[in-house]
């Protein structure tokens, strides 16, 4: 990782006020670092238990200057028809939005300013609205976002699902090229494209038959945009405990939107659990009374 924290005007202005009285008991953390490596070493010393879970920094950096850099090139019209592709025109703004580094309203205004007609930014604004929607529900339900909001519509009872994730899933050692790559990317960067999140969630809940809560906890450990509202309720949407039917996919769908990046080199090619039509997979994954 390159050195330097981008000590521009913004950082130089960011000087906190000094206390008026002796600050006994205040546990202040350091603000001056000569490099990102020094910051990493300092955080590893200060936070040894989180560092046991993983001790590296993400290549995605925090800060307003980074948020502005991600906001500047957004293309809402192009986003609308490419966003489902892993190499599509997505913004990477979610970690900054999640922590309020940049307001949702400002992102919307910038998006609308980039299009000839508001209609061309409507898909982009809908995705921002999902965050607003999840936050409103979080306000109503609080910790209730950890509970099944409704029964599973998979034909299976909640008790049919395992409580915990198999360790090889988190470690990216299942032999499925796509899912292992997503698990490693999650651990390495703290970020996953939304479509990849949906595939992983569907695989964990419907193929491995693990409770969505286990998957949600795994994601929250790592995601820089980790937020129980968006995260948990999206898992519930996939699981069908907060939607009318389960979300699932097939290999053809994954291959299309990854542009074949994983299927070609997958050790399980030819014996892929995601192979088949939606009808075939539906029969395989769910009990018969569930509608497709």
């Amino acid at each position, binding site marked *: 990782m390159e050195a330097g924290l981008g000590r521009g005007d913004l950082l130089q202005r960011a000087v906190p006020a000094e206390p*008026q009285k002796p600050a006994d008991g205040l546990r202040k953390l350091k603000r001056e670092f000569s490099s990102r490596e020094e*910051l990493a070493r300092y*955080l590893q010393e200060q936070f040894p238990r989180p560092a046991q879970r993983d001790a590296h920094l993400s290549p995605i950096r925090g800060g307003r200057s980074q948020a502005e850099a991600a906001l500047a090139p957004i293309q809402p019209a192009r986003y609308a028809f490419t966003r489902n592709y892993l190499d599509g025109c997505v913004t990477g703004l979610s970690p900054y939005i999640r*922590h309020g580094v940049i307001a949702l309203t400002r992102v919307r205004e910038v998006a609308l300013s980039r299009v000839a007609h508001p209609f061309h930014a409507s898909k982009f604004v809908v995705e921002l609205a999902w965050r607003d929607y999840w936050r409103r529900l979080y306000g109503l339900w609080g910790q209730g976002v950890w509970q099944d909001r409704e029964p599973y519509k998979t034909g299976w009872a909640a008790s049919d699902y395992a409580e915990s994730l198999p360790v090889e899933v988190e470690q990216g050692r299942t032999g499925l090229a796509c899912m292992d790559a997503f698990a490693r990317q999650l651990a390495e960067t703290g970020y996953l494209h939304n479509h990849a999140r949906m595939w992983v969630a569907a695989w964990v809940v419907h193929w491995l038959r693990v409770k969505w809560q286990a998957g949600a906890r795994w994601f929250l450990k790592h995601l820089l945009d980790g937020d129980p509202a968006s995260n948990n309720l999206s898992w519930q949407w996939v699981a069908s405990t907060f939607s009318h039917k389960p979300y699932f996919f097939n290999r053809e769908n994954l291959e299309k939107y990854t542009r074949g990046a994983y299927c070609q080199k997958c050790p399980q090619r030819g014996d892929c659990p995601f192979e088949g039509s939606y009808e075939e997979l539906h029969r395989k994954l769910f009990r018969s009374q569930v509608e497709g």
Partner: protein
Amino acid sequence: MKPLVWVHEDCLRQEAPYWNQHREAPAVFVFDDEQLEQEEWTLKRIAFLYECLLELPVEILRGDTVEQLRLAQQAYGCDCIVTADTPEPRIRRVIEALRQHTRVEVAPEEPFVELDDRVDLRRFARYWKQAQLKLFPQ
């Protein structure tokens, strides 16, 4: 009124209403050890927040959030605490605990869309049906 600005992880920007009105006031952020353990944070998440904080004029503290805020309030000679509203239950619990001993002003965030309190939230489609009328008026 001499406020202490409590910056929490849901609203890290100075132009948000809670902070914008008190830009000259001392501001603090607290990494809460108990939260980091309960939520099993990895170091990269802490680092991301830390880098955000380094671009803000905020004292970075760690420990029990309520205790550190009380100590900061004393050290800076502040008579109240201002912060941003959030649905996050942990932060709401901290606000309630702080209110046992001091005045706390909680400023709402700028609404993404102003909707009737009785808006139907049972499914996104129902919410969006009403939200889009405000966001994309004909």
